[in-house]
């Protein structure tokens, strides 16, 4: 099911994997610097779980899971939102019919590039970020909580990860998500959300120092989590403050251990905020890895350059497209910026454009 209001076809994978026989997926989100947008994605994931009737397991060391659950976005009823979308799409279409191209007429017959394809969404639900989900809807599914400071006694800070794993394993076996209870006819999915893994609050110093005391604690945790997910009907989203982790080797290992890795880069406080190329957006979405499960190929979309923006009611992810440069002072300087930022756009399952020499001509 789609998490986000606007469709990014990569996220369509969720639906496929959750309906197959053995759905398991470990999504790893690199947090943006202030954690605003990754928190939002996290809440979308949980909200979608509630609307689909999946059980939830929320783990956090930063804030109590109940507070997180109180702030989930409210789902929009199908009728009203689709009607709005339909109206918008119709308005756009009627404009086009009148304008036929005079100069670039060869392009007349090509399909319109959709920045946010909305017509063929069949999966997922839409949410209104400005409203909160009603408590009755929240309580309609089973909620499991793990708040680190309640679970651990004060002396034993090091075993945060171990306690979390034990807790997850206990829920999976007790509630029968691993198929251990043949009596249960209605099999349900467990959605696990773990917030800010690797931060100091979890008792891990991987974010504080270049040479952490136990560099493998995070990767071992992820491996066992992966094992638990593979053995049960569950999907998990983990957010990590990647910008704080100084040891890049650990990030590489973590990427290898996850199914899907998405990074959010917000423009707040960075030089890109004032860059006219990005004026419509609030940040970029970097997809570092997509799952290649049960198949030789993976479902790679054509677009690698994605940007997001947070409107008043919606969080949208769109293809990053640059409007034509119609200013009077079209100069080389702006083109250099473009090349520079193009270098940073990730282009494919791990394949990055390296060096200007390949693309300059």
């Amino acid at each position: 099911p789609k998490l986000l209001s606007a469709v990014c076809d990569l996220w369509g994978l969720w639906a496929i994997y959750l309906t197959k026989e053995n759905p398991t997926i470990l999504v790893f989100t690199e947090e943006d610097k202030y954690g605003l947008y990754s928190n939002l994605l996290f809440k979308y994931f949980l909200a979608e779980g509630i609307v689909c009737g999946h059980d939830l397991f929320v783990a956090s060391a930063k804030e109590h899971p109940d507070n997180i659950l109180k702030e989930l976005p409210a789902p929009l009823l199908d009728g009203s939102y689709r009607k709005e979308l339909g109206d918008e799409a119709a308005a756009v279409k009627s404009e086009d019919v009148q304008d036929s191209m005079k100069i670039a007429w060869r392009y007349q017959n090509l399909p319109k590039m959709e920045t946010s394809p909305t017509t063929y969404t069949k999966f997922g639900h839409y949410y209104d970020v400005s409203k909160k989900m009603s408590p009755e809807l929240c309580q309609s599914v089973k909620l499991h909580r793990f708040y680190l400071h309640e679970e651990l006694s004060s002396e034993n800070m090091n075993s945060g990860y171990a306690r979390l794993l034990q807790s997850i394993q206990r829920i999976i076996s007790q509630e029968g998500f691993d198929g251990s209870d043949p009596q249960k006819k209605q099999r349900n999915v467990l959605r696990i959300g773990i917030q800010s893994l690797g931060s100091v609050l979890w008792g891990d110093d991987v974010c504080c120092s270049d040479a952490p005391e136990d560099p493998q604690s995070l990767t071992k945790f992820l491996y066992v989590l992966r094992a638990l997910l593979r053995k049960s009907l569950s999907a998990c989203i983990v957010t990590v403050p990647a910008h704080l982790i100084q040891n890049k080797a650990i990030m590489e290992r973590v990427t290898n251990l996850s199914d899907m890795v998405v990074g959010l880069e917000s423009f707040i406080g960075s030089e890109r905020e004032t860059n006219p190329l990005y004026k419509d957006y609030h940040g970029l979405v970097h997809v570092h890895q997509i799952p290649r499960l049960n198949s030789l190929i993976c479902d790679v979309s054509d677009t690698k350059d994605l940007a997001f923006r947070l409107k008043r009611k919606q969080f949208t992810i769109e293809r990053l497209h640059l409007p034509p440069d119609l200013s009077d002072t079209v100069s080389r300087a702006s083109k250099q910026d473009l090349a520079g930022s193009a270098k940073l756009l990730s282009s494919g399952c791990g394949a990055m454009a390296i060096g200007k020499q390949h693309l300059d001509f």
Partner: protein
Amino acid sequence: GEKKGRILRFIYEAFRALRLAKSRREVPQGGRDGDVTAHTKGARAAAPLAYQCGQGKFTLLRDTRTDGSFLVHHFLSFYLRAGCKVCFVALLQSFSHYSIVAQKLGVSLAAAKERGQLVFLEGLKSCLDLLFGEEEQPGQPSPLQFLSGGSCDLRALFDFVRESLSAPAGDSCKGPVLLVDDLSVLLSLGAAPVAVLDFIHYCRVCVCCQLKGNVVVLVHSNEDSEDEENELVVNSLCHHSDLILWAEGLATGFCKDVHGQIKIIKRLSLRQAEQDLVQIYQYKIQDRNVTFFARGLSAAVL
């Protein structure tokens, strides 16, 4: 009927590849595009990868900026079809994942496991059994013993490999095969690089020298990687390999029709200072097949 056809076609491709490989020996450096074009235009998946089911060979599968697991699937189905006994140490994915892909490639893993041809170690499952399972029976230590922090070497894993491959299965003239996917995970789980290299060394001695079989191992690497331990392991293994299959993402970025490039580095002799034979192809992965072609000659371009 259909299965027989596939086996026959496979054997035909393998023979054709052997003939091509022999004729290509004449070329000092296999990378000249002109020569490669003549031989491999329209070559199917088996051609560059089908070398003789040699004995005592250590093959390193390496990937950079892309996912090289398609090579693991290929070798798994290749050796099973050839009738060798295979011990597959699968550390990162579940049995059903490999099973579904193998089905598309025409091999049934469940059937192979049933008749004892395939010994499958599902790393994720043994890890759970070790950490959350009931008390283990004495005398049957888990292959992933090092996870529980007891010993820091991979001795238990090696014992598991040796025991699975020592017992012959039917056709004993074909050597057994050890397949590992992937070795880089062991470092993430707390094994020291030296322990990993020792493990591979012991496996080579046992499988390649004593049992006259083959070892195929997948590792990940990156040119600008900061994971020094991993690079140490990969470089060391490169020096000891008879054959290296290196799958790389294209340097210019993502392309729908060409998923990457594969470099085949064949060690002609480990003793003399002969130049290694290097061949470079590009590939495209499809649902049931991988097609290889000479650089710049993808079907989309022709």
